[in-house]
């Protein structure tokens, strides 16, 4: 952030206009602006700021930890445990994360054919949706065997955030009082 060049007068004017309308019509934007202005005055009171994409990723991690203990699982070293112990823990993680995944997203295969089926790839294939493996040469159409059906999120909904919270905390420490 520090390395970004400072804005010109013209772009500052534009920004001021945008800010004016957003502050007037959007209470949450007003809060962000107020927070940003107060940030300079008392930087220690504010939690670390994270860019939106990282913030959403951390929220996802916090959900998978809360519902399915994923961070606990990945942070522990599995080598010294028996398969039975790892298996029992995996059930907890699988049950919880699966439920969380299905609550927040609808996941469908990219290709509906069964894996192992012979498929033909037309010339105008979408490289985002399909990857060619093996002895790929010449020009399409290609014939081959479907090795993985692929996955796509046809719906994905993350919780919104309200208030100002430190999103780098994936799970708070817990103290049982009494």
């Amino acid at each position, binding site marked *: 952030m520090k390395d970004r060049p400072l804005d010109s007068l013209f772009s500052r004017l534009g920004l001021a206009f945008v800010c004016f309308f957003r502050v007037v019509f959007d209470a*949450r934007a007003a809060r962000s602006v107020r927070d940003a202005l107060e940030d300079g005055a008392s930087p220690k009171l504010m939690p670390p700021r994270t860019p939106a994409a990282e913030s959403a990723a951390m*929220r996802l991690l*916090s*959900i998978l930890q*809360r519902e399915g*203990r994923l961070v*606990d*699982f990945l*942070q*522990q070293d*599995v080598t010294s*445990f028996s398969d*039975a*112990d*790892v*298996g*029992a*823990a995996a*059930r*907890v*993680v699988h*049950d919880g994360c699966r439920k969380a995944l299905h609550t927040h997203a609808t996941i469908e295969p990219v290709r509906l054919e069964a894996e192992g089926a012979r498929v033909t790839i037309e010339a105008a294939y979408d490289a985002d949706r399909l990857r060619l493996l093996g002895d790929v040469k010449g020009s399409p159409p290609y014939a081959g065997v479907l090795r993985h059906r692929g996955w796509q999120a046809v719906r994905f*909904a993350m*919780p*919104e*955030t*309200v*208030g100002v*919270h430190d999103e780098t905390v994936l799970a*708070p420490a*817990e103290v049982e009082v009494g």
Partner: protein
Amino acid sequence: MTRYAVGIDLGTTHCAMAVAPIEFEGARPEILLLPQIVARGQIEGRPLLPSFVYFATTGEGPQALPWDAERPFSVGEQARACAIEAPSRVVASAKSWLSHPGVDRRSGLLPIDAPDDVGKISPVEASRRYLQHLAEVFAARSGGGRGALAEQDVVVTVPASFDASARELTLEACLAAGIEHPTLLEEPQAAFYAWTDAMGDAWRHNVRPGDVVLVVDIGGGTTDLSAIAAVETGGALELVRVAVGDHILLGGDNMDLAVAHVAREKLEKLGKSLDRWQRASLVHACRVAKERLLGGESLTACPIAIASRGASLMGTTLRTELTRDDVARTIVDGFFPRVEADARPIVRPRVGLTQIGLPYASDPGITRHLAAFLSRQSGALSQLSGAMPAAESTARLLHPTAVLFNGGVMKAKALRERIVEQIDAWMRADGAQASRVRVLDAEDLDMAVARGACAYALARRGRGLRIRGGTARAYYVGIEDSVPAIPGIEPPIRAMCVAPFGMEEGSEATLPPHELGVVVGEACRFRFFGSSVRRQDAAGAVLTEWDEGEIEELPPLEVSLPADGRREGDVVPVRLRSHATEVGTLRLDAEPIQPRKPDERWRVELNVRERPGG
């Protein structure tokens, strides 16, 4: 502006809301996603709003919602999670408290074990907060004040077994939440409307004149039974709700606990002990396992893994499994045992009043409760006008011809089959000629009540058939005979009917001829009774005796006469006029025999705290 028909399922464990625009022909109820706090600082729209209130600590700060940054409490998913993490700060099962006659339901009561820094709230206030949350969601969705729930056609559901005072308190919560024109609807009826709505016109092929549909609604906390008869009147099909069951605090939560107990014993046999968190996760895991094992999947066992609270998962996770046999024994045979038609729930005498608690059903055998209902209601069709097939006069049971299941518990195929099997066996033994009872296939049993309430709001506007039925009870006031007092013997009491069974909404009962005396300037109490079986008593009928269990005592009535031109201490003779309101509540007014001004009347208070020891 578009007006909406809104159906609200105000449930013991969850709330849901369905909406449909009124003006659009053919609009169907749609479940609204309900934004709620799911974890600290995270808001998410979910179809169900758990009916829990969590009081945050001062350290946690406000429980901000998009429309209120300063709220000191939260409602919904996070609050439900806190019920395990910090139970003394969470209100749960407010609806069961709302129908508890032994407590003052307007007083700060919940959470029962709240610490000093939590301002306790009443069951009415808790209900208001759930409703207010729904009202706020609706308003936020339609962009502020103009779309307020106050201006929509709102139907809020209550258990059929709710008596007049619990309905009155539900109405009070609605009004306090800004729902200005609510209508109350019985949940089993809502389930029926959801079924007709889902079937479209085809439902008329499934229900014909002469049918009696038994609605079995088993939710998280309660079991609610109703019977709806189809009759032909002037060539048209008419539906009449002919009977409702008692308020039974018994539901899926009890079953989850029972299964968890089995799993816990297995773990303890291996020398493992569970802490509070693990016990709570065990209940949750057992619920999931139970649903899978009863759900018709061909599983013989379902593994259960319970993590510890700490950050280490491996090495501390406990593992066991539940078998199909465990679940069949605990749930199917434990809660739905095969019984004869003359089986009755075991009633245990209540032991001391050392602790305030909910009046949970003491017999977990739902089939016994069901047998008792069908037997008590054997005369349910007696007062029906319209063409009903001549009921066998020797029948000792009400004979349902079809069953409609509702509530999360009834998603389990094995339990539906057991109920059908029982009804068939009882009917055969009772000499029924009809073939087996039919099951009306319903879908989405968690959401049906909200959908059905919305469908009813549309049906009231002439877009569908309505179920008639009126009040599900007759109500009586106790009159004590003036006899010389004898120590140790209670004066005999007679019961005067003030509101007959089946009063239609918007109707008034004729004024009973008998007078009651009330004292000016004092709150006068009268004993109050209800009966869900006495269909024959007209307003004014005086009973000197009745069969065991026919009439139950309700919290007393209270009439307060302001002095207002009369001398304090004078006894003023009054009559009680009852009115079944359009909203779905019962109103009682005291009318003086010699009024001082035209239309002089005083509201009779239905929700009075029981006298200590009374």
